[in-house]
C-alpha cells in the first residue's frame, strides 16, 4: 500500500525486536471476540481508480463558476488569486501541527500574528484571536463570553441574524441555562431590537449587513445595550463588506464575530471556513481560542509564541473559556495571504465592485413585473419578494442553469411570511450576462 513504508521483512524484523511472535500479540488487551471483525468495505484502490470515482461524484455538482450565480446568505463566490492556493499547499504550512514548539514554528506563528492584526484592523477592534471554526460557532462563543463577562443569562438575537447562526447560538447558550430570545425577522429592515434589551440581558447579537442585506447603524444599539449593562455582539457574514461599511468597532461593538470565507477561501459546500473573533482588550481574558503574541528569544531576537493559554482547555480544563482546540489555521493563512495581496486599496476596490454589481442586479430585477426589491440599503446582497413560493422558483430556475439566490422558504421554514422572499447576492464575479440570464429566467418563470 503506497502510504505504508514498512515492508514485510521490516515488520518481521521489528516484531522480533519487540519480542512478539505476531502482530496480534500487541493487541492482546482487545477483547479477543472483538478483534479483527468482518468489515463490509472495499479493498484498497490505486490513484487512478480513486480519481475516477471521486471525479464522477464531483461531476454531479453544478459549480458556482459554471454560470449565473446569485447565492450568498453566509457564503460567497469570490475570486481567489492563484498565489493563495499555492502558498497554503506548501508542505511547511499544510503538514505542520499547532505551533507548540515556537523555535520551529515561527512561520505559522508570524502569519497568525499578522492574521490577528488584519482582523483587528478590519473589524476596528483592539484584539482578535487566531480563528474559530466558522462565523456561526464564533457567534455562539461570543454569547457565552458575554455571559461570563456580564454574569447575565439572557441572550437577545436580532431577527436579522442568519438563521443558522441563531440556531447554533441558541443550542449552545441554552445548554448552559441561558434563555435565548430571537426577534421576529423584519424583512423591511426596521427592526427595533433595542426594545428587547433588559437588565437581564447579557448581550444583543446583531448582524450587519443583516441576513436580508440591510445595513444597520449599530451605535444606537450599542448605547442602549451598554446602558443596560449588556454587550453588543456584532456579526458579519460577508467580510468584504467591511471594506465599504463603517467598522463595528467604530459603532460601539464589544465583541465582533464573523465569517472570513470571502477572503481567500473557496465555497467548499459549507466548510472548512474561518471564524473571525475580535474584542476589546479589557475582555481579552474571557476570549475563547488561541492567541499569538510577540516576544523575544534567548538571543534577543523578536519571535512569536502562543500565549495566554491559561484561558484554554489544555491548561485550564474544566475552567477553560471554551473547549476549542484545533481551529481554522490554514483557512486563516488563506485569509491572510489574500488580504495581504488586496491591502486596503484592493479591499476597498473589491468592495466597491461588489456593491456596484449588486446595484446593477437590483436595478435589473426591480423592473420585472411581480418582483419587489425590499432594501433601501444594502452592500452586495439584497432581498426580493415574489408572488410565488421561493423554493419552487429557485428550483425551477436552477433547471434553467440559473442559481438565483437563497429562498426564504428554506431558511425560515417556520415563518410562512418569508416563504416568498429570495436573498440575492452579487460579487465581483458577476457579469452582465449573468444578470441578463437571471432577469430573463425570472421574468419567464413569473408570468
Amino acid at each position, binding site marked *: 500500500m503506497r*502510504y505504508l513504508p514498512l515492508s514485510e521483512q*521490516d515488520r518481521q524484523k521489528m516484531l522480533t*525486536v519487540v519480542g512478539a511472535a505476531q502482530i496480534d500479540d*500487541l493487541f492482546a*488487551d482487545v477483547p479477543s471476540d472483538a478483534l479483527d*471483525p468482518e*468489515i463490509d468495505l*472495499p*479493498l*484498497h484502490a490505486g490513484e487512478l481508480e480513486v480519481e475516477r470515482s*471521486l471525479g464522477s*461524484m464531483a461531476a454531479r455538482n*453544478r*459549480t458556482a463558476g459554471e454560470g449565473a450565480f446569485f447565492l450568498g446568505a453566509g*457564503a460567497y463566490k469570490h475570486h481567489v488569486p492563484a498565489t493563495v492556493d499555492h502558498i497554503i499547499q506548501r508542505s*511547511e*504550512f499544510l*503538514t*505542520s501541527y499547532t505551533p*507548540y514548539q515556537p523555535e*520551529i514554528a515561527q*512561520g*505559522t506563528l*508570524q502569519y497568525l500574528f*499578522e492574521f490577528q492584526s488584519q482582523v483587528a484592523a478590519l473589524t476596528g477592534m483592539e*484584539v482578535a484571536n487566531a480563528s474559530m471554526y466558522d462565523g*456561526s460557532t464564533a457567534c455562539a462563543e461570543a454569547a457565552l463570553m458575554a455571559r461570563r463577562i456580564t454574569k447575565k443569562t439572557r441572550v437577545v438575537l436580532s431577527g436579522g441574524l442568519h438563521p*443558522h447562526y441563531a440556531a447554533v447560538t441558541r443550542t449552545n447558550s441554552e445548554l448552559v441555562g441561558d434563555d435565548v430570545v430571537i426577534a421576529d425577522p423584519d424583512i423591511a429592515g426596521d427592526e427595533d431590537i433595542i426594545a428587547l434589551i433588559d437588565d437581564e440581558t447579557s448581550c444583543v447579537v446583531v448582524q450587519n449587513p443583516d441576513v436580508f442585506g440591510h*445595513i444597520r447603524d449599530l451605535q444606537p444599539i450599542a448605547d442602549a445595550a451598554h446602558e443596560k449593562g449588556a454587550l453588543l455582539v456584532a456579526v458579519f457574514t460577508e467580510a468584504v463588506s467591511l471594506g*465599504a461599511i*463603517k467598522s463595528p468597532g*467604530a459603532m460601539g461593538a464589544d465583541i465582533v464575530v464573523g465569517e472570513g470565507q470571502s477572503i481567500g477561501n*473557496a*465555497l467548499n*459546500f*459549507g*466548510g*472548512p471556513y474561518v471564524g473571525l473573533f475580535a474584542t476589546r482588550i479589557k475582555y481579552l481574558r474571557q476570549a475563547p481560542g*488561541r492567541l499569538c503574541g*510577540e*516576544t523575544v528569544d*534567548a*538571543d534577543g531576537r523578536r519571535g512569536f509564541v502562543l*500565549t*495566554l493559554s491559561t484561558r484554554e*482547555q489544555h491548561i485550564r480544563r474544566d475552567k477553560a473559556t471554551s*473547549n476549542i482546540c*484545533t*481551529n481554522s489555521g*490554514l*483557512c486563516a493563512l488563506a485569509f491572510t495571504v489574500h488580504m*495581504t*495581496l*488586496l*491591502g*486596503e*486599496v*484592493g479591499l476597498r476596490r473589491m468592495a466597491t465592485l461588489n456593491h456596484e454589481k449588486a446595484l446593477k442586479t437590483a436595478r435589473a430585477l426591480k423592473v420585472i413585473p411581480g418582483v419587489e426589491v425590499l432594501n*433601501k440599503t444594502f452592500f452586495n446582497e439584497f432581498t426580493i419578494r415574489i408572488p410565488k413560493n421561493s423554493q419552487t422558483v429557485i428550483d425551477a430556475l436552477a433547471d434553467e442553469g440559473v442559481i438565483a439566490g437563497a429562498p426564504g422558504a428554506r431558511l425560515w*421554514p417556520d415563518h410562512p411570511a418569508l416563504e416568498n422572499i429570495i436573498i440575492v447576492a452579487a460579487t465581483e464575479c458577476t457579469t452582465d450576462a449573468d444578470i441578463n440570464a437571471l432577469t430573463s429566467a425570472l421574468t419567464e418563470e413569473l408570468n
Partner: protein
Amino acid sequence: MAMNAQGRPSAANENISTPMVETFTGNRALVIEESLIFEKEAFAQTGVDLPEPEGLEDALGGLERAEPIGLPGLSEPETMRHFVRLSQKNYAIDMGPFPLGSCTMKHNPRLNEKMARLPGFSDVHPLQPTSTVQGALQVVHALAHWLKEMTGMPAVAMSPKAGAHGELCGMMSVRAAIEARGESETRRRVLAPESAHGTNPATAVQCGFTVDHIPADETGRVDLAALKEKLGPDVAAIMVTNPNTCGLFERDIRAIADAVHEAGGYFYCDGANFNAIACKARPGDLGVDAMHINLHKTFSTPHGGGGPGSGPTVLSAALSPYAPVPYVVERDGAYELVERLDQAAADGTHADSFGRMTAFHGQMGMFVRALSYMMSHGRDGVKQAAEDAVLNANYVQTRLRAEMTSTFDGYCMHEALFDDRFLKDTGVETIDFAKAMIDEGYHPMTMYFPLVVKGAMLIEPTESESKEELDRFCDALLSLARRAKSGDASAFKASPVHAPRRRLDETGAARKPVLRWRPELTRAAAE
C-alpha cells in the same frame, strides 16, 4: 504564569550566546529574516488588479467606511516571498517525524488535496438546490457509511468541525437523551480520568455538567472498582479515551460500559486515538454510546498548522435520535438533506434532534480528503495502517528503553509513554531534552501530557515512518539520553541553537501581551 503548550514554563533566561558566525543581514544563507507585512510601508499598494468601478451612486445609507483601515498591501512577488520565507521557519511532517503523542501526525497524501480542489467540490455553495449538489451529498453519505461500518455504530453526525466539536456533539446528545428521560436536573455529573485531554472536561462543562475524576490503576488504566464507587444516579456519562492517553487499551472497556449503563449513564469515548484500532476493533462492539473521530488524525487530512479539522461523531442507537441537523438521507438513488427539525421528526432517524451545531453541513473539504484516503487504503489498508502504527510505537518503545524510562511495562498501542526518571539528577528536564531534539532535526514528542505522569514524553510515530527513519530517530534520542547522563546539561539548556529562533520568552509574552502590530502605527501609516 505563562505555560507552554504542554503546561510547563519556558522562559528564555538561559542566555547562552550562540556560536554562530554573525552576518551583516542577520540571515544565515537559506534562513532569511522576514519582517511583518505591516513593517513594509505598503499601505498604498495592492497585489491584485481589479477593473475600474463605474462610480454608481451607492446604497450604503450613509454608513460608508471613511476612516483608514490600516491594511498593508504587497505586490504578488513580495507576497510570495514573504510567505515562502515564513514557511521555511516551520517544521512539518513532509520534512521528518512529527512524533506528537495523541496528535497522530501521519502522511497527508496529495491525492486528497487534488480531489478536494475539484471544482465540483470546492466551487459548490452549501445552499444550492439539492438537485444541483447530488455528488456532494453522495460524498457525505459515502463517508458516513465508511465511518459507521468501521465503528460498528448505527449513526453518525457529520457536522462537527473538529474533535472538540465532536465531543460537544456527543455530550449534547447525552444531555438531550437525559432531558428526554426527564433527568436533566438530577444527572449533572460527568466522570473523566485525570489523564483525559483538556477538551473532555471543558466540553462537559460547556454542556452544563460538572466534572469528577475517575481514578487510574497502577497499569495506567481506569480503575474499574474505583469507577463503580463513583457511579450513581447523578452520573450523566463517563468520558474515556480508548486507546487512552497513556497509549494503552482499556482492557476492562466492556465492564466499564456495562457499569455505566447499569448506573443509567452513557459512555462517551474520545476517539482521538482511533488510528490504533481502525478496522481492528469496533467501538460499537465495546459498548460505546458516542465517539468523535478526528479526520485530521486517523484519516490523514492535514493539520494545517492548527486546523481546519473535522470531527464526525458516531452514535449508538440510544443516542442517535438526538443527533444534530442537518444530515443526508438516501432515497432510491437520490440524496436529500434533512435540515429541519420537523423533517427530522417525520423522517424518524433522528426524531428528537437537539438542533444545529454549525451553519451549513460540516467540513466538506475534509470529507473529500478523508474519503479519498479511505478509498485508497480500503479496509485492508486501514487495518494494516493500525497494525503498523502499533508496531512502530512498540519498536520505538523497545529501542528507547535502553536509555530512557518508560512509564509502564509491556506493550503499548500506537504511542509510547516515557517519563523523566532517566533524567534524574542530570539537571536536564523533559523540556530541555525536547529542545535538544530540535537541533538534531526532529520535532519533539508531546511533553508533560498526560498530566498524571511526571515529565511525560509521549511518542506517537504513526504508520507513516519507515524502519530506517525510526532507527535514525531512536539513535538520535539514545545519543541525547547518554549525553544528558554524561552531565552535559548546559548544552541542553542552550538548545536549540540551529533553529530559526532559540528558546522564546513565553513568560514575558504572557505578562505583557502584544497580540497585534501596533495599531497606532497602523493608523498613522494608513493616514
